[in-house]
């Protein structure tokens, strides 16, 4: 599945800047930074921008143009349900967290 509209393959310039909190074990890819900024109108675009800044990060988050099944995302305190299409606002705070099931 190609997600042209999601901007995974085309990166256009954005002014919107979101804060992304990097999972502890991936901070080696961001020079130890735990919070970085990235641009994008949705999660897919933000990940593409992260990959541009920190090569190698994308493969930990996205696979086959979709958020990895084992990864969940929280944007501004709400669990994202739309995967790479999850909208991102200016100054959004994005957390990548392990997916949780329940009993």
């Amino acid at each position: 599945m190609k997600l042209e509209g999601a901007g995974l393959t085309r990166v256009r310039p954005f002014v919107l800047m979101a804060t992304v909190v990097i999972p502890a074990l991936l901070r080696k890819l961001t020079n130890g930074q735990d919070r970085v900024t990235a641009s994008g109108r949705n999660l897919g675009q933000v990940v593409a921008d992260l990959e541009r800044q920190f090569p190698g990060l994308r493969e930990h988050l996205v696979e086959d143009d979709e958020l990895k099944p084992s990864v969940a995302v929280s944007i501004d305190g709400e669990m994202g349900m739309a995967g790479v299409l999850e909208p991102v606002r200016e100054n959004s705070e994005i957390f990548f967290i392990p997916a949780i099931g329940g009993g």
Partner: protein
Amino acid sequence: MAASTTNGFKVIGTRPIRHDGVDKVTGRAKYGADYAFPGMLHGKVLRSPHAHANIKSIKIDKALALPGVKAIVTADDLPKLPDKMEAAGEQAINLNHLSMNILARGKALYDGHAIAAVAATSSHIADEALRLIEVEYEPLAPVMTVEDGMKPGATILLPTLRNKEDGPDKETNVAAHLQFKRGDVAEGFKQADYVVEREFKTAMVHQGYIEPHNAIGIYNADGHATIYCSTQGSFVVRSLSAAVLGISEGKIKVVPAEIGGGFGGKTTVYLEPLAVLLSQKTGHPVKMTMTRAEVLRATGPTSGSTIRCKMGATKDGKLVAAQCWLAYEAGGFPGSPVGAGAMTILAPYNIPNILVDAYDVVVNRPKTAAYRAPGASNAAMASETVLDELAEKCGIDPLDIRLINGSHEGTPQTVGPPFKRIGLIETIEAIKNGEHYKSRLTGPNRGRGVASGFWFNVGLQSSATINIHTDGTVSLVIGSVDIGGTRAAQAMIAAEVLGVDVNDVRPTIADTDSIGHTDVTGGSRTCFATGWAVYEAAQDCIRQLKERAAKLWEKKPDEVVFENGMLSPAQPGGDLKPMSIKQIAPRLARTGGPIVGRATINARAVGPAFATICVDVEVDPDTGKTQILRATIAQDVGKAIHPAYVEGQMQGGTAQGIGWALNEEYFYDDRGILRNTGLLDYRMPTCLDLPPIETLIVEVPTPGHPLGIRGVGEVSIVPPPAAVANAIYHAVGVRMTELPMSPSRLLKAILKKRAAGETQAAAAD
């Protein structure tokens, strides 16, 4: 005993008789094993007698020759699936591992691992056929603990397993390492006046639902299949069975039977694909049911674990740093709930500096499955007893130290995002102000313990349909199986919104062809998410009802209002009389046809749950046996729809937590063979082992949910083991760090303490 008001609800907050009640007290309700079909065969599974072995050969000729045996299948009859994580339904799952768990391929990874399945004309013949299947095994050394699995040079279970840190060349039993970090723990501990560090071990335990797994597969010559089974999620059975069998999902219909308990254990598949496969081979419906021994040996219990927990506090009880290390047994395939353990272990508290490391380790035990707040009880056993010890060192009441540090709105979670409005503090206060905690506990060898617990809860997808009948009653169709009275709660939500009597709502749980996708009854999501869909579906009915009334009254829909179950013109006056649903229902045909309200959601805004429990125990110091004298649990439920069933969830989780605390455990011998394969020696609490469990319902509504509902199903199991451990300490002065705190273990600790005391006394002389 609700802490807040009912907010003017008419139905919500009342205690009507459940709609499926009569069926369930008369024996009429049909659970999976109660179905039978003409020509039906019976299937049985041959299981590995070894914990770890290569399968050299499987010979089935003798078994096939037994009169009455119709088919035998092995892993060769299943397609090979990709060895990577994929989304199947709502789950992230490695389908190759799932398939290999259903029938071992080349290697048996635990005692009880399925090797082959037989279909025969009776279950007795199928059983006899199992004895005739000849399997040649090459036994391998079993790896039974996380320590054994993690040590250098450990025997490897899965030759293709790799983890990110060790890279693509290194064979390993460690499937994953997770880390959560905030601040600087080294600096944090420097600020601490008191530091407590302990290592804990918790035993593998089973959900213990009373109904064994069951499935009936009916494969049609046209390529369509129907599965009847008792499951927590009919859609997950459909997607996983389709994947394992290599059939398109749409060709399988799953009919959810009534379900006799699950607690997370019935959120995956074991027998379902086999029943379809055997049906495909024989052309007959095939029924499969597990024995209790099969349930214990080969379905998913929850992980045993090793946890190290270090916490530091200043003299005034303020937590300044915490470091935790968790390793959980995944079973024969990756996927323990260690991630959840890591994210819950410190969640109730605001601690500036934290470092949590978590490891998922494969061992020669059954592949674990979800169990009520998976991973959280193990974790809370560690953190909540360490906190009790810190409270003692600080000289602060154990509830007060929780109030001082308790998470509230805005506190960052372990994973980072801040909590929205939550009710932990309210649960602690409910216990503190309750009669139980205020009462004096007297008598020798008696002690009181408290603990708190956290669980995320989940949202996910649900669908609901409401049909308005011509007599004004309604049928409510949902896809969430009813495992503990949720039908009644869903019907109450529909009745509340529509302003009809709850008995005029008839709830039905539909098969996968008859309702939109609905995720599992699990994760405490059913009242929250499906209830939300029901609320929206009822709103959809109201929109349509307003249109019909407008048509009858020759007005615009926005000139009609719906209040208290009555449709009336927005502008009073004239001779238009308000109409109830009962009154308008017969006129639907002439105003455009039937009304079907519908809604689907993928719920966000999940409200996390917290609970605090107070337990009194009496210990027999001569035998190490603990009796629970009294237990009171306070839980934030957001909004109690049917308080009786909310109390039931709180009591049930507490009871399971007490069982986990005192006696339940998987007992493997040196060869990795499970010794306690029955309910005689897998000791779940009986009615004589528990006091009446008292409940304090706390209602802090979940922001964003139209009714303020918070999931209630899981969190009650989180704090009991720690609370019992704390109570035991206050009774006899020993800190227990191993679950279960069985008489053997507790007596040993008591005698050790006594001996140490005598030595000290002798030294003092």
